[in-house]
């Protein structure tokens, strides 16, 4: 059993919703990313989603775009993201890590080489935003051969017949995009999310995570009522950005603290659901 399915089934048995924070590797700094990941686990993260910086992140809203830009300015590369995962694994062998990014850096690295290096570093799954099922064949086999879960997105615009095609290819979990739009945008409609989640559930037993548009404890709790997992990204990064701008001589741990505090509050919101 993969680390991901282990965590999902374990927490399902315990009636605990899976909380997945997203941060961009190398933001605010490459030196601090591993510490930030550990802090997020301490604050209640069950799975970590690590963004791989790309120069043209087309599905990201402004907050995450800027995080990608900062990370690249800080000299991040795909190899360095893998090195961070390896460093994280020295002190944590249990929390699954999913990498989320765009096809081009991976294609440049080489799909087979990337799959092998990811597995060796301790990555558990991959979301490639611009590799829909039509284009995924280049990487799918490579990931499967090293036991990595390839995670697909389903959106509010995905027709039912297509949902079937996607769930047949998917491993690990399904990532449902809650809003029509880029990350951090839009007004979340929890009822619409619940309806879509129930449509997807009829077609798969894979756990369903919901992301995009979750801003705080309230919206996280609303989504967790129907989903197995909640992904929160822009809200955490915006908190860190705001903190970083609030003073000149801040230690990085203080900036991380803003995200940690936000995640703790979201954890409490999600856990307050009646089981």
């Amino acid at each position, binding site marked *: 059993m993969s680390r991901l399915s282990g965590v999902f089934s374990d927490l399902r048995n315990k009636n605990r919703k899976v909380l997945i924070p997203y941060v961009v590797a190398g933001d605010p700094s490459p030196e601090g990313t591993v510490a930030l990941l550990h802090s997020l686990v301490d604050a209640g993260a069950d799975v970590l989603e690590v963004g791989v910086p790309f*120069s*043209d992140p087309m599905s990201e*809203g402004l907050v995450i775009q800027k995080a990608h830009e900062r990370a690249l300015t800080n000299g991040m590369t795909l190899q360095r993201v893998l090195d961070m995962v390896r460093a994280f694994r020295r002190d944590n062998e249990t929390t699954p890590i999913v990498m989320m990014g765009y*096809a*081009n850096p991976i294609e440049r690295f080489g799909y087979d080489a990337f799959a092998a290096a990811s597995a060796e570093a301790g990555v558990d799954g991959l979301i490639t935003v611009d590799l829909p099922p039509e*284009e995924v064949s280049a990487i799918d086999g490579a990931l499967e051969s090293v036991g990595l879960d390839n995670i697909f*997105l389903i959106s509010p*615009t995905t027709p039912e017949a297509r949902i079937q095609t996607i769930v047949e290819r998917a491993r690990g979990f399904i990532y449902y*995009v809650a809003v029509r*739009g880029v990350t951090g945008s839009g007004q979340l409609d929890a009822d619409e999310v619940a309806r879509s989640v129930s449509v997807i559930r009829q077609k798969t037993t894979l756990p369903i995570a919901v992301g995009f548009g979750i801003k705080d404890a309230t919206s996280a709790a609303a989504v967790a009522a129907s989903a197995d997992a909640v992904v929160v990204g822009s809200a955490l990064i915006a908190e860190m950005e705001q903190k970083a701008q609030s003073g000149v001589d801040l230690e990085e741990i203080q900036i991380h603290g803003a995200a940690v505090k936000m995640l703790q509050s979201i954890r409490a919101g999600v856990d307050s659901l009646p089981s």
Partner: protein
Amino acid sequence: MNSKVTSELLASMPDAQGRFGRFGGKFVAETLMSALTDLEALYCRLREDAAFQQEFDQDLAHYVGRPSPLYEASRLSDAIGGGRILLKREDLNHTGAHKVNNTIGQALLAKHMGKKRVIAETGAGQHGVASATVAARLGLECHVFMGEEDIRRQSLNVYRMKLLGAEVISVTSGSRTLKDAMSEAMRDWVTNVDNTFYIIGTVAGPHPYPMLVRDFQSVIGREARAQCLAQRGTLPDALVACVGGGSNAIGLFHPFLQDKEVAMYGVEAGGKGLDTGEHAAPLSVGTPGVLHGNRTYLMQDEDGQILETHSVSAGLDYPGVGPEHAWLKDVGRVQYVAANDDEALAAFHRLTRVEGIMPALETAHAMAHAEKLAAQMTSDQSIVVNLSGRGDKDILTVAALDGIEV
């Protein structure tokens, strides 16, 4: 050329997956997949629909002013003293460039889909103006995404778009040019996909855009082929067109692909020189990768990050290129070369002074290469150059480069 590539194959691309060999495809987020599938289904039906084609042809005739002339640049040809240079006068189209051929076609698609809002990306502003124009004519809401840097250097076109009722949105991310305008347009499309039609201005982007933009622009090559046969009794020896995303080039080239005797040259922006890194020539020195929904040649670094480009012409300032060009390069049917900023500027002045035709700076790149080519030819040979746009929009840029205050 690769002997396994038959002329039938050249004319039949893309395949059902939207691939031109290993290039093209649909590398987009899931939210856009169903919009692309719908567009593909509609377009595949309408391209066989006589009434749709007739509506398109009528608009091209009476609104755009087609056919555009094929004009022999006699004084320029005489001055060079080699092959004859024939200019396909797309600069004489309504709005002053080839871009309108495509926006007329896509606006008809938007109308058939019942979309009330259109968006577009633009570099030099010609596609933005052409989109704003068709939106005004059909009463559609129009938003044009344009890099902050391009807004500065193409201020006349920005004002034209505003006069036409479009909202011009300044894009301040990345290099603040065409690449970033396209990313931002795709972000808008993801957000408003239910009511919005995205009018892509070039033969790039996800399938079916490279195919449908090519089809709409192919009127250029069909006319040029017939005009050349009528005027000279023979096909040209060579075709030359500038290549940014590559829509004017593919429009000229595609109807000639099966004419083996016709050589083809796509001219990229060599910027300050290919060896300086400051250029926009992915076919000349780039490597394959994935950007903006398709696999193609890109300017990228070793880590797969897209590089910033440089060209004196905003319309060529793009790190990628249409996937069909990438394929035509690989199979050897088209040769891709580059002209530098300085060469383009010199060609701009020469055509203006010798023929009284002021080309767009994009087009001037094609002229620069055509002049070199003509010099190596004999007087019974001929070159058709796609004079893709007029240069009025570039007057301030040219003045600044020449150190003149207007």
